[in-house]
């Protein structure tokens, strides 16, 4: 029964897709995902702070029961420092139909050169799909525990939106949010960016980034790193990032192919 066996086996071999068929299938699924082509991200960024936070968010969504025999939905548990998803984030997530995280575009070396008590951050919001409205947005920066200072010493962290950068004078800033932190505190500091993000979305040319300023209880400027704030040159899994929650403001139909 050699020939019969062969026939039986061949009918159970998963049909080999020709490369053109495979590309067509991938394009069809990408069109469901709303993507023009498959993204080519830089490798090894999965352990960075933003992907870890987004994975936390993803794992809070798991609402549908796992069907018998499939382990398709395993909450991919984040490893070491993973930014906590606050209850507020979960509420933002319920109302949103898309969440995007954005990495800081200002280069890491800037830390070493820049003025001591000020840091600059920039985010590229240009890839946000048309027809989305920001329902909430946050700027997140990690605060490490610092040993050297006495426990109760407090610092004031202020986040400003850059309004103008005139070539020959001081930048014009708008205070967005402030947070008093103790030297002994550790974890993610969250600053609200909702209004600023919507402004940047509508007027991209006004997206001149953020400035972060650190002062001690006497109003004296401080180097953020000496107060435990992790900026550009710190570990990847504690890098500052921005996250925005979106809601589509129109029903989008799939383009006919």
């Amino acid at each position, binding site marked *: 029964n050699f020939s019969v066996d062969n026939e039986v086996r061949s009918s159970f071999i998963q049909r080999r897709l020709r490369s053109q068929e495979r590309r067509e299938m991938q394009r069809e*699924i990408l069109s469901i995902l709303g993507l023009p082509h498959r993204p080519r991200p830089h490798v090894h960024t999965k352990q960075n702070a933003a992907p870890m936070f987004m994975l936390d968010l993803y794992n809070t969504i798991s609402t549908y029961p796992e069907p018998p025999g499939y382990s398709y939905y395993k909450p991919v548990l984040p490893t070491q420092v993973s930014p906590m998803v606050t209850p507020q984030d979960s509420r933002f997530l319920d109302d949103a139909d898309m969440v995007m995280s954005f990495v800081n575009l200002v280069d890491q070396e800037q830390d070493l050169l820049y003025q001591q008590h000020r840091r600059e951050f920039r985010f590229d919001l240009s890839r946000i799909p048309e027809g989305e409205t920001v329902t909430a947005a946050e700027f997140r920066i990690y605060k490490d525990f610092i040993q050297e200072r006495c426990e109760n010493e407090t610092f004031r962290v202020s986040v400003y939106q850059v309004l103008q950068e005139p070539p020959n004078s001081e930048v014009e800033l708008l205070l967005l949010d402030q947070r008093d932190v103790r030297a002994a505190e550790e974890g993610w500091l969250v600053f609200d960016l909702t209004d600023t993000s919507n402004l940047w979305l509508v007027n991209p040319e006004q997206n001149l980034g953020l400035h972060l300023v650190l002062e001690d209880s006497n109003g004296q400027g401080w180097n953020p790193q000496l107060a435990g704030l992790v900026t550009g040159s710190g570990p990847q899994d504690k890098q500052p990032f921005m996250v925005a929650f979106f809601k589509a403001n129109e029903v989008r139909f799939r383009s006919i192919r």
Partner: protein
Amino acid sequence: SAHKGRQSNRSKPQRTVQDALKAVEAATDNLGISREGCKKHELYVSFRDLGWQDWIIAPEGYAAYYCEGECAFPLNSYMNATNHAIVQTLVHFINPDTVPKPCCAPTQLHGISVLYFDDSSNVILKKYRNMVVRACGCH
């Protein structure tokens, strides 16, 4: 009663195909080969098989399911038949020539969320509606 016009303009070859299908149907019915009633079947979509695990962070894939099975008289309670499907089933049962059996299709669909990188390594978490069959029924 269905519109008679349908019968007249049906071309001869169409007839023979229809007859052949009916003959097979009658044969299977007579042989007592019980066709399964309309219900949900397993179907897994694997992003891994598509080779996309470098940019899709989660999930590795998802159970989409699909609906298949007969919507024939008598429609059982698990077939979630609409009132219209029940009437259509009766008309088909009385006179198969006039209307086909109702269709077995999803009556409830659920969404999934996908977490993926875009080209500049920003991360996107997006919810997609109507991706998983929750229940099937006769329409």
